[in-house]
C-alpha cells in the first residue's frame, strides 16, 4: 500500500497532496434499513398521466410550484435552479444532471425525494438545459474549462443551499457525477454525502482507441478554438425511435423526455464540441483519480449495461475512496434515474436509505 502510494505520488503531482488519512471503511449495508421500500417511488404506469394531468396535484404542477431562480456563474453565464422544499426537511439534496440534460427531467426524482422528506435543489449546468450558453449556437455542447462546472456548483451550494440547509447531500448523474466528485475534492465541506448515478469518470470513446481519440482531440483543441462539433456531433435532432435509444429501457420515461424537449426548444442541446471533449477527458480523469483524497461518505451506482461511460473508472474511484460504497445495478442502462421502475426504484430506495443513514446513523 505504502509502495503503491509512493509510486502514484512520484508519477502524479496533484499539488502534491496527502491522501485521506482514513482507511477503507466497510460498505454501507442497504439492507440494514427497511425503509423506504421500492414501492415508495413513482411508477412508469402513472408518469405520463401525472405529468399531463390538468388537476392541481399533477407532477407538472409540483414542478411549477417549486421556487425558480437563477444566478450568474463563472464569466457571467446564467444558471437556473429550482428548489422544492419538504416540510421539516431532513436535509437538502443538490441535483446535478448529466450532459445535455435539463433539470425539468428530474421533476419525478425531486417529487420522490420530497415525499421522502428531503428538500431538493436542482441546478442546471452551463451550456445545456435551462442554462445560458457560451456559444451563439445553442446546440453546441461546449465548456471553456471543466472547472467552470465545479465553481458554478460550489457557488450555488455556498450561496443558495448552505444558508438554509445545515446538511447538504449531492445526487448527481453522469457528467454531474464527475462535477460532484470534483466539487467534493476542491471544496471539502461543501457536501456531507455523495450519491453518484453512473458518474462520468471514464468516457467511453466508442470506436476510437483512447490513444487515437485523446491525441486527436488534444491536437484539435491545441490548434483551433475547439468550438466545432466533434466527429459524430451535430445540431439537436429529435429522437424518433425508442428502440434505438441506449440510455434507458423505460419507454414511458423516454417518451416523457422527448415530450419535454418537443415542448421547450430552449432546453434542447445537440452534439458535443472538441473543446468539451478535451475538457471532459481531463475533468473526468481528474475526478476518477481524486478518490484517495476523499473523506466524504459516498455511494456510487454503476449501470451494468452502460455504453456511455466505462466501468473501470468508477471502480477505481470507489476502491480508492475510503468511504465509498459501490453498488452495481444489473440489467440497467446509463440513465439509472430514468430507467424502468425495477431499476429506478431500487436505486432511489438505496439513495434514500444511504442519505437517511447520514441523518440518523
Amino acid at each position, binding site marked *: 500500500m505504502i509502495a503503491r502510494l509512493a509510486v502514484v505520488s512520484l*508519477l502524479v503531482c496533484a499539488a502534491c497532496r496527502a491522501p485521506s488519512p482514513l482507511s477503507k471503511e466497510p460498505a454501507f449495508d442497504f439492507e440494514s434499513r427497511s425503509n423506504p421500500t421500492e414501492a415508495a417511488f413513482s411508477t412508469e404506469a402513472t408518469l405520463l398521466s401525472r405529468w399531463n394531468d390538468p388537476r392541481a396535484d399533477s407532477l407538472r404542477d409540483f414542478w411549477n410550484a417549486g421556487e425558480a431562480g437563477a444566478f450568474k456563474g463563472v464569466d457571467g453565464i446564467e444558471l437556473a435552479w429550482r428548489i422544492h422544499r419538504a416540510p421539516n426537511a431532513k436535509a437538502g439534496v443538490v441535483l446535478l444532471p448529466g450532459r445535455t440534460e435539463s433539470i425539468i427531467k428530474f421533476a419525478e426524482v425531486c417529487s420522490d425525494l420530497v415525499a421522502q422528506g428531503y428538500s431538493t435543489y436542482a441546478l442546471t449546468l452551463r451550456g445545456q438545459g435551462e442554462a445560458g450558453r457560451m456559444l451563439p449556437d445553442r446546440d453546441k455542447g461546449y465548456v471553456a474549462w471543466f472547472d467552470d462546472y465545479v465553481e458554478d456548483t460550489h457557488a450555488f451550494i455556498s450561496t443558495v443551499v448552505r444558508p438554509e440547509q445545515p446538511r447538504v447531500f449531492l445526487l448527481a448523474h453522469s457528467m454531474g457525477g464527475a462535477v460532484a466528485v470534483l466539487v467534493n475534492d476542491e471544496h471539502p465541506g461543501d457536501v456531507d454525502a455523495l450519491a453518484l448515478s453512473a458518474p462520468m469518470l471514464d468516457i467511453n470513446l466508442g470506436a476510437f482507441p483512447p490513444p487515437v481519440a485523446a491525441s486527436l482531440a488534444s*491536437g484539435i483543441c491545441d490548434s483551433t478554438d475547439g468550438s466545432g462539433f466533434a466527429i459524430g456531433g451535430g445540431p439537436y435532432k429529435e429522437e424518433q425511435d425508442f428502440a434505438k435509444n441506449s440510455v434507458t429501457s423505460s419507454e414511458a420515461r423516454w417518451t416523457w423526455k422527448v415530450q419535454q424537449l418537443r415542448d421547450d426548444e430552449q432546453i434542447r442541446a445537440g452534439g458535443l464540441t472538441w473543446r468539451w471533449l478535451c475538457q471532459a477527458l481531463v475533468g473526468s480523469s481528474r475526478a*476518477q483519480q481524486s478518490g484517495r483524497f476523499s473523506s466524504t461518505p459516498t455511494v456510487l451506482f454503476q449501470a451494468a449495461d452502460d455504453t456511455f461511460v466505462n466501468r473501470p473508472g468508477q471502480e477505481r474511484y470507489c476502491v480508492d475512496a475510503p468511504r465509498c460504497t459501490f453498488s452495481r445495478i444489473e440489467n440497467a442502462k446509463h440513465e439509472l434515474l430514468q430507467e424502468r421502475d425495477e431499476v429506478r426504484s431500487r436505486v432511489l430506495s438505496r439513495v434514500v436509505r444511504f442519505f437517511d443513514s447520514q441523518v440518523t446513523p
Partner: protein
Amino acid sequence: MMVLMASSAFAAEPDFRLHVGGQVGFPYVLGVSSTGTFFKEGRPRFDVDATWEPSVQLQSYSLGGAYHVLDRAFFVGGRLRIVQYLPPWARGASDAFLGLGLEAGVRIRVGPGEKGVIHVTLHGTFVPGQATNLSTLVGLSAGFSWSVFER
C-alpha cells in the same frame, strides 16, 4: 597523398554540435528545442535534447535521447516527459504527470556545412499515472534547427 587528404577532411568534422530550433506537430502543436549531436567519424551517432512544447491545452517539458542506426539519418530514441493536460492559465488544477516515450524518425543534415537539421519524428508517450483515456498519446512532429556551437 589520398590518405593525407582524407585525413585532413576528416579532422575538419566536429565531434559535437549544439542545435537550436523549432517544430510543429500533433498533438503538441509548437515546440522549441536544443539538441546536442555527437558525431563519430563525421556521422551523427547520438543526440540528446531538451524540448519545450507549450500549447493551448497540452504542455510538455522533455528530455530525449536518440541513437542513429548505422550512423544514418534514421534514429530511434526515448523521451522522459513532464506532461500537463491543461496549461498553467487554465481554471482549475493542472496536475503534472511523468511520461515515458519512444520515438523514431529522421534527422537530415542540410545547408552550408550541413549545419541545418530537418527532423520528422513519430512518437508515443505512456503516462502511467494518468487515467486510461489519457494514458497514451501518439503524435508526429517536424522541425528545423541550426547549429550554434560546435567543437
